[in-house]
């Protein structure tokens, strides 16, 4: 027979609302990174729930796998794909949102009322007996006896997924990438020696050496190579003319 101690109840009533609020927030915040953070928080509270329910190994693995690896992967992809692309919250399919919320309320209400009415036929047991040899040992016992076939299947699934991800994300090069040495040789053997000594730095002759101010060529025009293509594409390039000094004031004011 299972009795739940007060500390666990306190923990539950403290963390459960927090996790639900965080999950709701996940839907409502604009930035995807905030969503990911809130989800990470939900996962951590779930891990605490697991530990409270005598699933120590699963709780720790939840943090290592979900919070540590999966959410980190999400963050990584979010940063790769565009950090500040905040999601537009406008509806693209008219009437989708009210329908979704109504359906969710109905579905959630159904689930909750079902759980409320369901009868198990026996009292809750608790895991004291099952965990008597230790939670990890108990899990290992099951995993390598009853569930050894699913275990193998899942591990092959994992390998397949890793390979699949590699195939999907792999970017085949048509020609091998030039090494630094080959690039150096090509620079000197090319048609022109203009770039043999390297590209001009930003700020050459430009009276300003910030990276967004292009260098000036001897004829006063901007050297296109002196500035990062990213800055150019973003339109963050400054015109160096604005940093030019005006005519030097040579007029001498008479001393009093």
């Amino acid at each position, binding site marked *: 027979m299972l009795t739940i101690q007060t500390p666990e109840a306190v923990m539950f009533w403290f963390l459960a609302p927090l996790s*639900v609020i965080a*999950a709701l927030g996940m839907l409502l915040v604009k930035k995807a990174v905030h969503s990911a953070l809130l989800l990470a928080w939900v996962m951590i509270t779930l891990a605490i729930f697991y530990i409270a329910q005598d699933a120590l190994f699963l709780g720790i693995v*939840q943090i290592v796998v979900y919070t540590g690896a999966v959410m980190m992967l*999400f963050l990584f992809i*979010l940063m790769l794909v565009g950090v500040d692309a905040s999601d537009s919250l406008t509806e693209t399919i008219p009437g989708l949102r009210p329908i979704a919320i109504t359906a969710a309320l109905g579905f959630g209400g159904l689930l909750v009322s079902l759980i409320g009415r369901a009868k198990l036929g026996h009292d809750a047991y608790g895991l004291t007996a099952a965990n008597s040899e230790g939670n990890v040992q*108990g899990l290992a016992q099951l995993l390598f006896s*009853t569930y050894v076939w699913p275990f193998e299947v899942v591990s092959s699934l994992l390998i397949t997924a890793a390979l699949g991800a590699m195939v*999907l994300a792999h970017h085949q090069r048509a020609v091998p990438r030039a090494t630094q040495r080959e690039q150096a040789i090509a620079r000197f053997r090319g048609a022109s020696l203009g770039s043999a000594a390297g590209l001009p730095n930003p700020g050459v002759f430009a009276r300003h050496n910030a990276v967004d101010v292009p260098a000036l060529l001897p004829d006063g025009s901007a050297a296109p190579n002196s500035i990062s293509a990213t800055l150019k594409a973003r339109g963050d390039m400054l015109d160096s003319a604005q940093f030019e000094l005006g005519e030097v004031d040579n007029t001498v004011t008479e001393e009093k």
Partner: protein
Amino acid sequence: MNPYNYLYVSAILFTIGAVGVVVRRNAIVVFMCVELMLNAANLSFVTFSRINGTLDGQVVAFFTMVVAACEVVVGLAIIVTIYRSRRSASIDDASLLKR
């Protein structure tokens, strides 16, 4: 308090995840909502494992984690591939066959 309360939390989280899948437009956020649903299901597995006094529920939850990891790896690779060709991570932009 009885352990059924965990089941209520699980049900609510699952519903929220489902709404997120339908409502949000960013493919990555949609993905995270799927993760939330899987997590919610895991919570009920663990709770039932405790109620029934056997560890089988935890083993299933363990398998769910592995499968979820697979799903994330492949899914994110797909998102990156789509992003490479479309420069967008919105699921509305990926309906090229329709138009």
